[in-house]
């Protein structure tokens, strides 16, 4: 029931919000709905009763698909992330005004519902449905409320991911016909009867979709543009949660369905991921745009997650699971600051900024904490994840881990560059009249900072949450 509610409430809330005209009502209502979702997600996290956590009704018997939702360790942590992120986003962007506020928030909720559905669904076809469903509202959100080049950029994003997901659909269908009982249920998929060459082909079809979503190195070009052009609230949702869909799907579907193929292809994928990490980091160093920098930094981080996943080490997987959460939190924090700066000063170019720390000390401090989390400093949440992931990668191949580790250094370079160019130094003409961040932004950031620190110091609850999931996963993989 909890699982169903988690999806139902954003859907209903979103549909209602679509038709509310008054701006303040919409905002209040949205905050309320998102908080309810958060409460339910927290209930889900702390509940252990299978009957509450699972929901299973007949849906398309003719197609062998059932409406199966379930909260296990894996989906718990991600639904928590999804549920946390929306209230934070709403708080942080509370003062932003949009044309058609109701539509904006309504679509945000639908997008959230889609993402929750992806995380919760235990049926391949349902999973695919939600996968697409999360995309459509995002497309509209970016295209209607985005920046100047929004139409082309978002369209590219949409088509790109759509191509991937269609290929994934082909793969899902193919596996469906190879399952013993002709069913889309997760367990049937896990035991699908594929020959080596079939699983090889289907693996790649499946993987490309996820690689585009994550994104992995050569498939990433949609990302910086989209993040740059999308309205920041949407960017937060996209980068904080939606890219996790790809990583999540690797864990939930790809690895258990194709254990052999993923192992035999792991070297290629890990190499790509590691190349991507360094590549994205190096590009990030040369960025002059806050949003693009964060986007590239995200590519680098996701690359590490992907590499750790395919290293087939329990440590690495565990790391990925908690890092999905942590990365979501951290990057949302970064976007909040980027948005605050852009909203206030109208620019996101480093070259036009400087010395903001004198004018906006609170923002500076909070931003620095988020940045430190971004570079995975110990006692911030990202450290634990990256520690475990690198550990996994190291067990897979020490040299690869060493090369990938360079990105830690590069991450420090570009993150500190960013801090320095925005906040340090003397004020320039633009920042002369700047003022400190508003209350709502501080609240949102402080919430995030608390999460960052708490889970940085005491990550064990998250590890406990995900441990069982990883253990069952590991047994699937030879």
């Amino acid at each position, binding site marked *: 029931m909890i699982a169903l509610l988690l999806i139902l409430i954003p859907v209903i809330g979103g549909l209602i919000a679509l038709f509310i005209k008054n701006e303040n009502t919409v905002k209040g209502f949205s905050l309320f709905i998102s908080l309810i979702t958060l409460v339910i997600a927290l209930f889900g996290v702390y509940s252990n009763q299978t009957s509450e956590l699972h929901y299973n009704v007949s*849906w*398309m*018997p*003719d*197609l062998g698909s059932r409406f199966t939702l379930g909260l296990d360790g894996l989906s718990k942590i991600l639904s928590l992330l999804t549920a946390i992120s929306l209230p934070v986003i709403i708080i942080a962007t509370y003062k932003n005004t949009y044309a058609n506020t109701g539509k904006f928030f309504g679509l945000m909720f639908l997008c959230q519902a889609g993402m929750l559905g992806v995380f919760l669904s235990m049926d391949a076809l349902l999973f*695919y*449905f939600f996968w*697409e*469903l999360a995309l*459509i509202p995002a497309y*509209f959100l970016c*295209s*209607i409320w985005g920046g100047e080049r*929004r*139409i082309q950029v978002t*369209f590219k994003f*949409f*088509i790109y991911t*759509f*191509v991937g997901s*269609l*290929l994934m*659909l*082909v793969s899902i*269908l*193919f596996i*469906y*016909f190879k399952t013993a009982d002709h069913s889309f249920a997760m367990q049937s998929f896990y035991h699908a009867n594929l020959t080596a060459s079939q699983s090889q*082909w289907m693996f790649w*079809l499946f993987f490309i979709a996820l690689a585009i979503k994550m994104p992995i190195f050569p498939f990433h070009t949609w990302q910086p543009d989209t993040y740059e052009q999308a309205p920041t609230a949407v960017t937060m949702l996209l980068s904080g949660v939606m890219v996790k869909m790809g990583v999540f799907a690797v864990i939930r579907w790809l690895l258990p369905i194709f254990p052999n193929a993923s192992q035999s292809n792991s070297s290629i994928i890990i190499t790509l991921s590691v190349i991507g990490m360094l590549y994205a980091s190096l590009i990030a160093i040369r960025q002059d745009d806050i949003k693009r920098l964060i986007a590239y930094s995200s590519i680098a981080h996701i690359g590490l997650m992907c590499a750790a996943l395919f290293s087939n080490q329990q440590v690495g997987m565990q790391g990925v699971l908690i890092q999905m959460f942590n990365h979501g939190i951290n990057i949302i924090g970064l976007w909040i600051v980027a948005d605050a700066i852009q909203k206030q000063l109208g620019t996101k170019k480093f070259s036009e900024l400087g010395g903001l720390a004198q004018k906006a000390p609170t923002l500076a401090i909070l931003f620095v904490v988020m940045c430190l989390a971004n570079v995975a400093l110990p006692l911030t949440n990202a450290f634990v994840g990256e520690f475990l992931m690198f550990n996994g990668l190291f067990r897979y191949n020490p040299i690869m881990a060493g090369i990938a580790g360079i990105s830690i250094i590069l991450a420090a370079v570009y993150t500190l560059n960013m801090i320095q160019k925005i906040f340090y130094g003397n004020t320039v003409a633009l920042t002369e009249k700047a003022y400190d961040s508003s209350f709502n932004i501080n609240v949102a950031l402080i919430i995030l900072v608390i999460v960052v620190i708490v889970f940085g110091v005491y990550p064990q609850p998250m590890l406990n949450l995900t441990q069982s999931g990883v253990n069952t996963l590991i047994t699937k993989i030879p």
Partner: protein
Amino acid sequence: MNAIIFSAGFGVIMMFCSFLISNKSSYRHIAVVGLLLLLVVNVMETNGFDIFHINSYGMLSYTRFGLFFNTIAIGSTLIYVLLTGKDIERLGNYVAEYFTLIFFVLCGVCILSSYNNLLMLFLGIEILSIPLYILTGSDKRNLKSNEASLKYFLMGAFSTGLMLMGIALMYGGTGTFSLDVVRSQTGLYKGVSFLEIIGLLFLMVSMAFKVSAAPFHFWTPDVYDGAPGVFTSFMATVAKVAAFVAFLKLCYVRMTATSTAIDWQLLFAIIIITTLLFGNITAVFQQSVKRMLAYSSIAQAGFMLFALFSLNDFGSKGLLMYSAAYCLATIGLFAVLVKMKDVTFEGYNGLAKTQPVLAATNAIFLLSLAGIPLTAGFLAKYYMLASVIATGSYTWLVVIAVLFAAVSVYYYFRVVQAMYFKTGDPQTEPITGSFKIGLIALAAIIIIIGVLPQTLFNWLYF
């Protein structure tokens, strides 16, 4: 039989109406009543009430599939008349005649869904086509309409020639026109007849022409573009899927067992790929939404051809699904299109601001055509892809198809972009509230089918 006779009969009634009743809009109402009646009698027949009990000597055979398809076709026509009936009235003085012809087309559709003899196939195709030639040319002053009509007629007649050649050769090989006569019946015609295979090839080409499969699709864009929008809507949907159903039956009965050595799948694969290629790629650069939809109908045909390629349960179910999804969405799109004063993409700019209901429903129709989940179009595509994958070979064909599906998203979403993300001042004919309600209902049907396809299939297999 009910549907055939009633549709023919209503055609005649409409014909008489033209000089008995002078009020234009009453034609529409009579037509709606007729279609409702048609729907009812067809559903009755589906449930086993045949009013007429005519012995067709094996010329026609009624299957659940065919009757269900009739329901879809008649239902689509009903929705079509409800949504676009008013626009037909704007077209000229022969409103009743147009409805007559539409009923005659429906008669052809019903024949095609239940034919069991090549003669009936031939007659059905002709009864379907000849009214369409006329409807295409119905805008007599418009040179585009003239041109379209001439092209359609000449090429249609040519393809009829090819079809007849095919039928003749098939007859030469088997000695019968009946589809069901078992080949080994007479002892002399065991195994494969070469003549029949050649005949089937001819027949296949002419049917490919009718369903506008490449490389026999060339008439489609010109005719759909040139014909008055209201009739394009009709012929691109009901008439086309009827040809598909006829084609499917032909393939099922004749092409499945021709030989073990001879495989029709390769030819179909080639036709599918060319169809997808021409349809999708050419649609990308179109400037007019109407012409884009014409090309998109070719592209959609490429997907429907999968049913003929794989010839399994998924395929035939899927073809029904596809007909429903495709007809409904296209009818909806054209219903809005004929209200637009400018049918280029620019003409749609900013529609979401001035006509939010039109834009929203249009977006849903486009999503359905593009095959986005939770619309009927997704399930339709799903069945088609599944049918091919179920055959176990030619999976690469599916991959190619989905790549083209992604291309199709490009041009469908250009309309969405124009409506939602661009600013402009779109000019439309006056929009009535009932029209909007109709559109919303149509969109709702599409979504309901997409979310709960079981409603459709429970109906089919109750």
